[in-house]
């Protein structure tokens, strides 16, 4: 099979799995998950084959794998869609395929496959456990998810969206994949739709990202109308870029390229949950944990960053746009990190850390660090998927404890209910630790260190304020990560439930182990050449390969000791302080960082509610519907009714009745009646009188004719 055909085929297995499960196999749980995992495996195989072939190609950036077909006729031309695998796609495909496959496998265990059906489980609500009788005494075990098959259908669709997005050679199919993921995230966040919080979170996620998507659609339309193409390779040709940079857009001094870039970037702001559209992502934790990992690591949020990295040649044409991007990214990185400090829900901490890390990548792009952004995207995908799956494993273990004690008031996601889990769940602990260290940028061994260090080095070289912001954010990241690890795994169990937590089955731990290998090892592919001692030991493959995507290969930075020291200090300092602060904290009241302002996420949800949602609802109902449609337009219409009636009444009362009825109608009848009354005497019934009368008339008429007419 040619590579091009293979690329076309990569997104197909998950979508086929989706249709198969939805249409045919949804009653059979085992078959459904086999189809789902099998599809993910097929896509994984395809992706790996493509990846291996791609790295074998000399200078892939210049001669990528491309293939396209006519799709939309537009006048005399066609809009073509197709697939493209250049270095950026290849590496993205690599991490997407791995994480997707791991998440599929993990889901089998997470949704309690093989367990009995719950006693009181309802579709639309999380499973509550089942009672089984064993050796004569009853005990409660986790029960299988009631909508098990449906879950695999949804994540299949999700995977399809992501693969489509990654292999697209044009913005339109990228957008198609982008939006399909938006739908899936809606469906998956609202998976337990019986919960109000899940419903609201699903709608919030969809609508918030849609704000960005609408701008992105405009950006696509704008780009398409200026350049006449949406294919990346054609847009990034030198002449097209030159024209785009040269034409002013007429808005606030942006060039056309700058404005288009900004519109597209707003799409990313929504999708990658950047400030000010970040509010949906923490709420998206309402979904099942594999969903959180899908959305937060492997797919949707990465897709946002991937899109900006993809559009980098366009964005970089306008300095103004770049500085906006850098500002939003850096600000989000810091802002989200501060909120993460005060969260107690194990998944919410990770959610804010995701926002923060995505801000990192965006900021890196904003200062022009293309390769560093892409590198961090990949390493982050691995370690954040690991962390989310790890937290899911923790929650699962805790739920086991909750079922054991039967005390359902204990929140299995609250870190203050945990503690000491390292002994109960060793695999989860060690993998989570590796993931946490990677996130914090633990020096030298973790992947997160290398990618973060590269961003900091770039920032130091190009933009000092961004460097300082990111350094503080990195410190906070290390701090809250250690807080999380300390509260969850270290110390002694703080609740009875934590004492009875249990390690999760192999379907959940295997993905953790695989991902932790990448969370550590992937970084070694990107060690800078000029790094002391280690530099040059392994070639800086990431830089060489990914940098090749751009027309001009970015130059490797000279080594500078300041950013290296900074990243060492913030990472180790943050981790150390985090451990010191929290090793003796036993309840949330003892936590000094439970500041209302941080805990309530700077009150953004409340502000948005007051500023946008309430007024819009009011406007829609009261102004548009009640006043405008019902009141004004229908009011005018309803005037026509009485108005016409008034005219009709007038005509009837003042014309029809007196003139036509009385005068013409009744009048003629009356006249006839009156004259008949008068003339009736003539009719005697006597034939001779009639004849006489006839004779007289005859004579009279004859006389008249004779004397007047004929004469």
């Amino acid at each position, binding site marked *: 099979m040619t590579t091009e055909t293979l690329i076309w085929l990569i997104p197909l297995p998950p979508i086929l799995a989706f249709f198969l499960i939805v249409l045919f196999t949804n009653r059979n749980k085992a078959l459904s998950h086999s189809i789902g995992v099998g599809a993910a495996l097929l896509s994984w195989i395809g992706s790996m084959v493509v990846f291996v072939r791609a790295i074998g190609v000399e200078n892939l950036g210049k001669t990528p794998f491309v293939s396209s077909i006519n799709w939309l006729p537009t006048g005399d031309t066609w809009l073509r869609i197709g697939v493209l695998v250049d270095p950026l796609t290849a590496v993205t495909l690599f991490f997407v395929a791995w994480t997707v496959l791991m998440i599929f496998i993990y889901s089998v265990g997470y949704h309690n496959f093989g367990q009995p059906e719950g006693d009181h489980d309802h579709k639309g609500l999380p499973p509550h456990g089942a009672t089984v009788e064993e050796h004569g005494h009853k005990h409660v075990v986790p029960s299988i998810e009631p909508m098990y098959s449906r879950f695999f259908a949804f994540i299949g669709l999700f995977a399809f969206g992501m693969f489509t997005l990654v292999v697209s050679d044009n913005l339109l199919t990228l957008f198609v994949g982008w939006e399909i993921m938006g739908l899936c995230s809606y469906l998956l966040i609202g998976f337990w739709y019986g919960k109000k919080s899940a419903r609201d979170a699903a709608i919030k996620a969809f609508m918030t990202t849609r704000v960005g998507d609408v701008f992105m659609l405009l950006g*696509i339309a704008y780009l398409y109308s200026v350049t006449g193409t949406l294919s990346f390779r054609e847009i990034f040709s030198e002449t097209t870029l030159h024209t785009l940079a040269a034409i002013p857009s007429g808005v606030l001094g942006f060039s056309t390229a700058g404005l288009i870039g900004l519109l597209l970037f707003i799409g990313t702001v929504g999708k990658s949950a950047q400030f000010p559209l970040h509010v949906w992502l923490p709420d998206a934790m309402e979904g099942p944990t594999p969903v959180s990992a899908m959305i937060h690591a492997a797919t949707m949020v990465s897709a946002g960053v991937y899109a900006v990295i993809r559009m980098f040649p366009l964005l970089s044409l306008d300095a103004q746009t770049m500085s906006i991007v850098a500002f939003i990214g850096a600000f989000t990185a810091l802002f989200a990190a501060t909120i993460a400090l005060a969260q107690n829900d194990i998944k919410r901490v990770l959610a804010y850390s995701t926002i923060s890390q995505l801000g990192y990548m965006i900021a890196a792009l904003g200062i022009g660090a293309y390769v560093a952004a892409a590198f961090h995207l990949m390493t982050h995908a691995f370690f954040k998927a690991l962390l989310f799956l790890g937290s899911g494993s923790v929650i699962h273990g805790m739920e086991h404890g909750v079922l054991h004690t039967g005390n359902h008031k204990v929140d299995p996601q609250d870190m203050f209910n945990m503690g000491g889990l390292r002994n109960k769940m060793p695999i989860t602990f060690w993998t989570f630790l590796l993931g946490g260290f990677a996130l914090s940028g633990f020096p030298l061994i973790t992947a997160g260190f290398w990618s973060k260090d590269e961003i900091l080095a770039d920032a130091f070289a190009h933009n000092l304020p961004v460097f300082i912001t990111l350094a503080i954010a990195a410190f906070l990241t290390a701090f809250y990560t250690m807080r999380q690890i300390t509260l969850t795994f270290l110390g002694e169990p703080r609740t009875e439930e934590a004492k009875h937590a249990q390690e999760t089955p192999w379907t959940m731990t295997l993905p953790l182990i695989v991902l932790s290998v990448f969370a550590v090892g992937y970084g070694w592919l990107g060690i800078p050449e000029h790094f002391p001692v280690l530099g040059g030991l392994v070639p800086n493959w990431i830089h060489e390969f990914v940098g090749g995507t751009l027309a001009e290969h970015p130059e490797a930075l000279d080594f500078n000791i300041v950013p290296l020291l900074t990243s060492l200090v913030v990472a180790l300092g943050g981790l150390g302080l985090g451990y010191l602060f929290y090793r003796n904290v036993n309840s949330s009241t003892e936590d000094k960082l439970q500041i209302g302002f941080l805990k309530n996420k700077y009150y953004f949800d409340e502000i948005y509610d007051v500023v946008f949602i309430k007024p819009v609802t009011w406007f829609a109902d009261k102004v548009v519907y009640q006043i405008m*449609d019902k009141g004004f337009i229908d009011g005018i219409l309803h005037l026509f009714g009485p108005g016409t009636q008034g005219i009709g009444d007038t005509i009837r009362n003042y014309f029809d009745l007196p003139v036509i009825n009385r005068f013409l109608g009744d009048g003629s009848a009356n006249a006839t009646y009156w004259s008949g009354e008068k003339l009736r005497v003539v009719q005697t019934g006597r034939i001779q009188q009639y004849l006489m009368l006839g004779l007289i008339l005859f004579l009279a008429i004859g006389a008249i004719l004779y004397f007047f007419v004929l004469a």
Partner: protein
Amino acid sequence: MDFIVNHFLSLVLFIPSLAALIMLFLPKGEAKLLRWFALGASLVPFLLSVSLWFQFKSFVPGFQFQERYEWYEAIGSSLHLGVDGLSLTMVLLTTLLTPLAILASFNITEKVKAYMMLFLFLETGMLGVFMSLDLLVFFVFWEVGLVPMYFLINQWGSANRNYASMKFMIYTMGGSLGLLLAIQMLGVLFGTYDLLALTQRWTALDPDSTLLGMSVSTVKAIAFWAFTIAFAVKVPVWPFHTWLPDAHTEAPTAGSMILAGVLLKLGAYGFLRLILPLYPAEAKMFAAALAVLATAAIVFGAFASFAQTDFKRLVAYSSVNHMGFVVLGIAAAGLASGTPDATIALNGAILQMFNHGLSAAGMFFLVGVIYERTHTRNLEEFGGLFPLAPVYGGILIFTSMASLGLPGLNGFISEFLVVRGTWPILTTFTAISMVGLLFTGAYILKGIKKVLHGPLNEHWAHGEHKVTEINAREILVMAPLMVLILWIGIYPAWILDVINKAVVMLF
């Protein structure tokens, strides 16, 4: 065989009416026979128009399958039929939706005979508008479509049907009054009602000739406005839209399907067939005004839809929102006629007409399905129906997403094309209309949330009120719509190519 080949369009056009006349002689009580007969009779035109679609040569300019019969020779009017890519698309939509609507009305039990006959007459009326190339005949069919719909709403509608049917009738009649006048003026001025002859004489007419003391340009201007108002009411363009929510809400399910699916397209078709080709100058001059109204329809339609508590009304307002994109595309094409951007905008507008026909019909049907089980349309009274009717839920989400314009489904393609086409021409309006696109999401999600999601309303779970799953017949109604929705969403070229060629040759 020759007869069929030579009279293809007349067959498609008159078979429904003929069947309706035959139905007169069928026994009144045999509801089953009447239903199946009507369904069969409406499937024949569908099969014929599918074969029409395959015989149609999209690269040939002008009208194909033309037929012409003398009708009213004294005033120069004839029954002149013909289709091009634009009208063929609409014919296909009409003949597809009518059998589905009839199938959807199999649950009608009172006055089945009259109901089915009205539907078949309605089909002839709608097809006639799309096929006729003679203004007078066009008008006749235009009105023929109105009457059955009035009775369908008035006789088989829900509680407030008298008000709604009256409003529908008066409103559209008000619009078509001017239409008739304008058509007559043009007919007298040019001595023919034939669209092709009229188009040829349109510019060649001696500018000094007069009608009733009015100059040619005055007559044209009056006719332009009369046309515009008539079509604007039918589309409907904001602020002429308030008949729509009432009529759609009160009409029987199948009536709403046809109303939203086809009748609204008559207005947009009028814009494309008559106004743009005949009045390029006026269209250009007033394009901005039309764009304002279209944007208002998109934005306010979405807002109004969001404000509804009645499920069917919510869907009805979504039609205002979606048809706004059609009008926006037409406005852009009027402003920049002949440019590639205008072509794209028109492609989008016409495809949007077709797509909205599919998704709106589907949505109305699904509302009907749930209404039949619960006897309420109040969104507040539903809740958590997903576990009770998972297949229904899946279909509803699918169709809603098509309506929302989710990429991969049909609505996205047309909306994208409209946005792409109008952006360079009417940048500001396109940008403002995005607010409407955003709120499309809001009201669709509101509908799904209130009906499917949420805690289960126990009322529907047990006893006589138990909500049952969508049945096979109902799935059969939805299946063709869903297949087309997906097909156009994934590979739109098969239909868009025909539209595109027609647009390139027409404008």
